[in-house]
């Protein structure tokens, strides 16, 4: 199983903050996971149209082409605006 999380405007767009799912067959990177989610259609298109989509893998900010495996926590979000 993997945990996928969404934050800020992206959380509002996809309508959920977190979901747990089995690592889909053939999905081995964050980018591939995004494509898998986008293929659900509807509000999930937000993951495709998001400007400057950022991602974290196990709570480290990483590039979208980073490899993922079972047990990982993956997060998608817009550029951060704290401080």
């Amino acid at each position, binding site marked *: 199983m993997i945990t996928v*999380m969404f*934050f*800020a*405007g992206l*959380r509002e767009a996809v309508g959920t903050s977190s979901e747990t799912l089995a690592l889909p067959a053939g999905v081995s990177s964050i980018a591939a996971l995004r494509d898998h989610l986008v293929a659900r259609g509807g509000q999930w298109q937000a993951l495709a149209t998001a400007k*400057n989509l950022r991602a*974290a893998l196990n*709570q*480290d*900010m990483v590039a979208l082409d980073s490899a993922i495996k079972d047990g990982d926590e993956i*997060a998608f*979000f*817009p*550029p*951060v*605006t*704290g*401080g």
Partner: protein
Amino acid sequence: MQHSVSVQEADFDLSAEVKALTAGNNLAGAVASFVGLVRDNNDGTGVADMTLEHYPGMTEKALDEIAIKAGERWELLGVRIIHRVGHLMPGDQIVLVVVSSPHRGNSFAACEFIMDYLKTQAPFWKKETTAEGSRWVDARVSDDEAMAKWRDQIGM
């Protein structure tokens, strides 16, 4: 170097944080601090209030890593970072960074580095309420540029 980070809804007191960071150690001749405040105006639009969302767990981890990176780069004695989350009003304190060091140049550089790093790397998001409704704040190109400056200067 000692360091500690907090992500909290509660307000903070700058003097108390400086005192706590420098107590019992009279080697620190220099303490540089930064406090970020909620402005009542952003890009020309009045801001009534603000909500700060974050990624629990990752925020603490990111701030921790930023403090450690600063300590590796400069001779520091202590770093304290506090970032507030939740509901905030104009004039409220959002973020605090305190850096103590034997020498002021190091304290200034590390404090600014931590803020620049935090602005682009720590998972916080601001949502403002304006007269036209609420909106997520856009990231600023100037923040990416500030971060890029450190990458160029010190490879971070």
